[in-house]
């Protein structure tokens, strides 16, 4: 039996303790604005790392992440909405619904579960496609979810959206879920299941001929990704305290895809780095915009930077590699290299 007190685990535990201390210090010293930005980083890590399961590791390019966020966001918002706001906004719903408020953690999990449940039939249909066709089909899912949100008047209040939620998302929930997501994704990817995912991505015919259940692997990855998408949506809804259908826009889907591509799809730590960069960069640019009085310029700069990035480093900052702190203290890498040879 292998001891759990390995060097790797000690480093991991040390890292977690360090994170908790850093978050504690941040929580005590930073003002609400910086805490908001930090919360957003946590939320985007959840979203990017989970999107990595499909887009990065299984090679199924999905543009439907915002759809699962919307499902999680609306579900959790309906569950946690305070009674006063409920009476004002959801008067058409049955009486039993007017009389309970679910705690936020439960609502978050529930939002994730509902997103995962919906991902099952959706996945059964859209995962028959691959490549561009899959991307378009998942984009279709986003359109369907948005139009349901815009038209299911008694429940979602249509374009008016749900407001008056309590600001439940704090640093601990955002980063707690970020750690859980990273942990789950990491364990999935570094397991026999993850090897199969990567095999499906790199050559699905070869994988199938070696006995990998290609469709099942892709479906499970899609559902897991949807679960954390739903959780991320719930966290975002409870940071904004108000959600409308336009919140879950194409822009949001593309923002997460961009985070993934910048960090390096196919790298868990890459998606974390991508999420951090693409949350902070717009904030810094907005600050420069303010100083030099040039509104709108930040969007142009980000777009130009993306084009340059795609030309000069299209595999993302990390490519398929990982940052693994425990390896910094060892001679050889603890994690095996990807199945395919790294491109560069």
């Amino acid at each position, binding site marked *: 039996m292998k001891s759990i007190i390995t060097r790797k685990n000690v480093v991991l535990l040390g890292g977690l303790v360090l994170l908790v201390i850093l978050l504690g210090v941040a929580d005590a010293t930073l003002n609400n604005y910086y805490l908001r930005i930090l919360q957003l980083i946590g939320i985007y890590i959840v979203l990017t790392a989970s999107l990595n399961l499909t887009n990065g590791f299984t090679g199924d390019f999905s543009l439907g992440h915002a759809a699962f966020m919307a499902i999680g966001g609306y579900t959790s918002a309906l569950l946690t909405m305070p009674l006063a706001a409920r009476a004002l906004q959801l008067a058409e719903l049955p009486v039993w619904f007017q009389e309970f408020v679910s705690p936020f953690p439960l609502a978050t999990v529930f939002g994730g579960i509902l997103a995962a449940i919906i991902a099952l039939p959706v996945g059964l249909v859209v995962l028959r496609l691959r490549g561009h066709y899959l991307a378009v089909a998942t984009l279709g899912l986003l359109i369907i979810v948005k139009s349901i949100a815009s038209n299911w008047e008694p429940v979602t209040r249509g374009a008016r959206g749900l407001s008056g939620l309590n600001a439940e998302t704090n640093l601990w929930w955002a980063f707690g879920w970020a750690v859980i997501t990273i942990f789950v994704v990491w364990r999935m990817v570094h397991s026999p299941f993850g090897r199969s995912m990567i095999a499906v991505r790199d050559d699905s015919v070869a994988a199938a001929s070696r006995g990998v259940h290609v469709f099942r692997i892709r479906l499970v990855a899609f559902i897991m990704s949807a679960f954390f998408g739903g959780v991320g949506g719930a966290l975002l809804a409870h940071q904004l305290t108000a959600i409308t259908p336009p919140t879950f826009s194409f822009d949001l889907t593309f923002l997460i895809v961009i985070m993934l591509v910048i960090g390096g799809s196919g790298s868990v730590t890459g998606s974390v780095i991508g999420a951090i960069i693409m949350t902070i960069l*717009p904030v810094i640019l907005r600050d420069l915009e303010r100083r030099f009085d040039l*509104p709108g310029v930040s969007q142009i700069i980000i777009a130009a930077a993306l084009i340059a990035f795609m030309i000069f480093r299209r595999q993302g900052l990390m490519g398929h*590699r990982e940052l693994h702190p425990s390896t910094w203290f060892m001679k050889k890498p603890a994690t095996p290299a990807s199945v395919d040879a790294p491109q560069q």
Partner: protein
Amino acid sequence: MRNIRFMALGVSAVMLLAGCSAGGGGGDSDEIVVGAVYSITGSQASIDEPAYNGFKLAAKEINEAGGINGKQIRVAFSDAASDTTTLTNVVSELIENDGAVALGGTNDSTFALAAGPIAQAAGIPFVASGATLPTLPDQVGDYMFMACYGDDLQAQAIANYSMEELDAKTAWALVDQAYDFTTALNTFFQERFIAVGGEIVLEDSYKSGDTDYSAQIARLQALPTQPDVLFVSAIPNEAGIITQQIREAGLTQPIVSGDGYDTPLVAEVAGDNSKDVYFSTHVSLESEDAVVQNFVKAYTEEYGTGPENAFAALGYDTMNLIADALKRAADDSDPAAVKDALASTQDLVAVTGTISYPEGSRKPSKAVSIMRIVDEVTTFVKVIEP
């Protein structure tokens, strides 16, 4: 390759630090920081940019006249980009980093409902410029104020005008189901119209984005007796198309509506068919009132173009409303004192009408201007006092 990985880590770490050190700088004691929350890029830009210009103009005039209690006003602004996430970040930034003692802005009730709670939680008064949802202050809390009237007031004004000036006894109501604004306007119009003895012969609905209204118009034409006025509760996007299709069907009754019709789109889209349309709005910029004319003149001098719409006037009034409260506040650096002063605003002369907050309400009772469109030309017809 290893160095690229460290570079990636380094870049994100540096950005994390840079992000935390960005901004900063609280207010000096000889200046008062007021935050402006507007989106000058994105979908809100056409109404938010004039409002922000009006807001800045008011601050400039106050500073030129010697400021408030000897202190200059500094308008802190960061573009909210018509995006809820950015908007909430901006509100938080203005409060926490710029040290704003009061905030003003947003011309959209949905955005106001996202921005308001942050100010409420931080205990900073927030004056919504053009968000007309009547329940807004109650939904957000005691730090939320409105510079504009609520939809209840404008709906009552249209109902009264229809009844008294247009001799209407019966009305048809067409409502856009997609917005708080349109549904609320419809509810309040019907309540008032029925209360003063009118009758709603048929209520019909559509969803923002529809382009064909022939079904609704056919149902209207099938009525045994035609209503005296046609009430349309629409946002600017559909105002022109609906007018066009109603007139094309040969219906000639007056069309009445709220400030959703205060858009050049009615004349542009409906063209010759833009006849006999009456709508309520915040102010007529053609009014001969000296306050309005001075504002139009100052705005034109400052920006080289006249105020684009009534929202410019609302932005101007928002800043003046905050300034008036700062002057009267027991301590102009204490947000709670500013909130109390705002709540006790009485008879403040503003471009969009005299502003007073009735006891216990944070929604002003104000005059409503009724405008009329005839053959693509909009003219001012009447001011209805509350």
